[in-house]
C-alpha cells in the first residue's frame, strides 16, 4: 500500500487573479473570443467617442442654465424661494436627527438623499457660458467655486444641517417621540410653508418643475405604503365584508390606467364635494397617485404575506399575542422584507408616473421641459439637451431608491435569516 503523506499542509487551489490573468481567462481565452473582444472594443470606442463629442462639443447646453430655475421650481416666484429652502432645511434637520437616532434603514435613506444633494451641489447646471474662451480663464474657474459655495449656500446649508443633525441625533433616544411628531407635522408644515398665509401666498398653480415632481412622489410614496399594507391585510381578512371591499378596490384600480384615475380625480371628485368647495388640483393629484399606487402596493405586500408559514402565526398566538400584535411584530416584518425589491420597484414606478399629471394641467419636471422646447421659440431645437437633463434627474432619484433597496436587502440579509 502507498504511504500517504497526511501531515503536508494542503493549500486551496490558486484562484487569485491579477488583471492580466483575468483578461486572458475571460476575454482572450479562445480565438473567437479574441475576435469578439476586438469587435466589442471597436464598437465601444465609437459609442464613447460619439457620446463624448456630443456631450462636450456638439450639445448646446446653454439651454439648461437659462431655464434652470423654471426646471427646478416651475413658475414659483423667485422672491418666495426662501419658503422652499425653509421646508428643505426643516426636512434636513428631521432626517438628520432620525438617521442619528434610528440608524440602519433611515441612515441608508439619508445617505442616498445626501448623495443626490451632493450631485446637485457639484454639477454646474446653472453656469452661463458666454464664450468658448471663457472656460480657460482663471476668473471663470474661480467663478465655479463661487457658484458652488456661495450661490448655492442654501443647498450647502441644507447638506450641512443634514450631516450636523446626524451627529447631534446619535444616541439621543429620548428624542424619538418628538421626531415622530415632527414627521407627522412635516406634511402640513410643507404645504403651508410652500403656499404661505395671509396676503402673500403662492397659489398651487404656480408650483411646478422638480419641486412638484418631488412633492407628488414623496406624498404618494409615504401615503400609499400604509394604505397598501392595510388593503393587503384586508384582502386576507376572515371577515367577508372587509375582504370583499379590499378585493374590489384593488382589482378595480388595477384594471384602470393611471391617466383615467387622474382625470376622474379632477373631473368626477369635485362632483362629490359639497357646494362650491374646490379641492386643490395638486391635492387631487396627490390623492389620485396615492390611491392608484396603494392597489399595486397591496398586491406586493400580499405576496409577502402569503410566504409566511402558518407556524409563525401559531407560535405567536401560542404565546398569547393578539391578532394586531401578531401582525405587527411577526407577520409584517417578515412579509415586508421578503418583498422589498417589489415595493421599491413600485416606488420607482410611482416616481416616474408623476409625469402623467400633465393631464390635469400640472407642470411637473417633464411638463416644464415640454414647455421649454415646445412653447418657447428661443429654445426650439434644444429637445435633446433638455430631455437628457430630465432623464438624468429622473435617473438620479430612481437610482438612489434602488441603491437604498439593495443596501436594506444586504442589511437584513434577505434570504438569510
Amino acid at each position: 500500500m502507498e504511504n500517504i503523506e497526511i501531515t503536508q499542509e494542503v493549500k486551496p487551489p490558486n484562484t487569485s487573479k491579477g488583471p492580466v490573468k483575468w483578461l486572458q481567462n475571460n476575454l482572450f481565452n479562445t480565438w473567437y473570443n479574441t475576435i469578439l473582444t476586438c469587435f466589442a472594443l471597436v464598437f465601444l470606442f465609437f459609442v464613447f467617442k460619439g457620446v463624448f463629442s456630443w456631450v462636450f462639443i456638439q450639445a448646446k447646453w446653454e439651454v439648461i442654465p437659462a431655464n434652470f430655475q423654471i426646471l427646478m421650481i416651475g413658475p414659483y416666484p423667485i422672491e418666495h424661494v426662501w419658503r422652499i429652502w425653509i421646508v428643505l432645511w426643516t426636512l434636513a434637520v428631521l432626517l438628520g436627527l432620525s438617521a442619528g437616532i434610528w440608524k440602519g434603514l433611515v441612515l441608508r435613506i439619508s445617505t442616498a438623499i445626501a448623495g443626490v444633494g451632493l450631485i446637485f451641489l457639484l454639477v454646474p447646471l446653472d453656469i452661463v457660458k458666454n464664450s468658448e474662451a471663457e472656460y480657460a480663464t482663471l476668473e471663470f474657474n474661480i467663478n465655479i467655486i463661487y457658484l458652488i459655495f456661495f450661490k448655492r449656500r442654501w443647498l450647502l446649508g441644507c447638506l450641512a444641517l443634514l450631516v450636523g443633525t446626524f451627529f447631534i441625533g446619535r444616541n439621543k433616544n429620548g428624542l424619538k417621540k418628538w421626531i415622530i411628531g415632527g414627521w407627522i407635522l412635516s406634511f402640513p408644515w410643507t404645504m403651508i410653508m410652500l403656499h404661505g398665509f395671509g396676503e402673500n401666498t403662492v397659489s398651487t398653480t404656480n408650483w411646478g418643475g422638480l419641486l412638484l415632481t418631488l412633492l407628488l412622489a414623496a406624498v404618494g410614496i409615504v401615503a400609499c405604503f400604509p394604505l397598501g399594507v392595510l388593503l393587503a391585510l384586508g384582502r386576507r381578512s376572515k371577515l367577508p365584508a372587509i375582504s370583499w371591499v379590499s378585493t374590489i378596490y384593488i382589482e378595480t384600480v388595477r384594471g384602470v390606467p393611471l391617466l383615467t384615475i387622474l382625470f376622474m380625480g379632477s373631473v368626477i371628485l369635485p362632483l362629490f364635494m359639497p357646494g362650491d368647495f374646490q379641492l386643490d388640483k395638486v391635492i387631487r393629484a396627490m390623492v389620485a397617485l396615492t390611491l392608484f399606487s396603494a392597489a399595486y402596493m397591496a398586491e406586493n405586500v400580499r405576496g409577502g404575506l402569503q410566504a409566511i408559514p402558518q407556524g409563525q402565526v401559531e407560535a405567536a398566538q401560542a404565546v398569547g399575542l393578539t391578532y394586531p400584535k401578531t401582525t405587527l411584530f411577526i407577520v409584517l416584518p417578515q412579509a415586508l422584507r421578503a418583498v422589498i425589491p417589489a415595493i421599491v420597484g413600485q416606488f420607482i414606478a410611482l416616481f416616474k408616473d408623476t409625469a402623467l399629471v400633465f393631464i390635469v394641467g400640472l407642470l411637473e419636471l417633464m411638463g416644464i421641459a415640454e414647455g421649454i422646447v415646445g412653447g418657447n421659440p428661443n429654445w426650439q431645437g434644444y429637445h435633446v439637451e433638455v430631455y437628457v437633463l430630465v432623464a438624468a434627474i429622473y435617473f438620479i432619484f430612481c437610482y438612489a431608491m434602488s441603491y437604498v433597496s439593495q443596501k436594506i436587502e444586504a442589511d437584513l440579509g434577505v434570504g438569510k435569516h
Partner: protein
Amino acid sequence: MNENTTNDPIIICEDVHKWFDDFHVLKGITTTFKKGERAVICGPSGSGKSTFIRTINRLEEHQRGTIIVDGIELSNDLRNINLIRQEVGMVFQQFNLFPHLTNIKNITLGPIQVRKMSKKAAEEAALALLERMDIADQAYKYPAEISGGQQQRVAIARALAMEPKIMLFDEPTSALDPEMISEVLDVMRELAHSGMTMLVVTHEMGFAREVADRVMFFDEGVVIEEAAPADFFDNPQHERTKLFISQTLQH
C-alpha cells in the same frame, strides 16, 4: 403518580369532537389532567394527537363538547382564549421560532407585549431561562445561526418565559438529528421534575416510561387505551396498542 401531582384538575375535556370539513378527527375525547401531571400521548400518524393538544390552546377549534382549562371554558370569547394562551405554553415539532428576531427577542416578545413586563426584567428572565437550557451564549444570535437542538431549547424557553401553568409539546424531537434529541429530552425531564403540568405527544418511549404518569394511546380520533407507563408498555390490553408498541420499539 409523581411527587408533584395533585388532585386538582387543571384541564377538563368532556366529549370533545372535531371535524375538518366532513372528516371526523376527534370522536369524543373525555379526560381530565391534574395539576402537575405528565401525560404522554402516542398513536399512529393521523390519529388526531396534534389536533387534540392544539384544541387545548385553541389553535384548533373543537365543535362539540367542552374544554375547561384552569377554570376557564374555551369558547369563541376572544378574551378567554387569550387568557388561556397565557397559561398554556406550546412547543412545536418545527420549533417555529421567529427568524427575524434574535433568540433573546424571541423569548422576551411575549412577556413584554402580553404580560406587560419591563424590557429589562424580561431580558433578565430570558437570560436566566437560556442559562437553564444551557445555551446562554446563544442569546444574541438569530435562530438560523444555531443548531436544531438549540433552536428547540430556545422555543421551550420562549414558552416558559410566559410562566405558563401547562406546557404542550407536539413531537418536540421528531425534527431533530439523533444526537440532538437527548439534549432536548434532558431539558424536558428537568422541567417535569420542577412540577410543570405537561402534555407531550412523542414516540420517545424511553422518555415516556421514565417521566410520564400516564400514557394515552390515540387511534382514529379516540383514546383506545390509557394507563401508567409500566402497565401500558408491559401489559397492553388492545391489539392495536400491542401492534403499535411492538412496531415502535423495533425502531
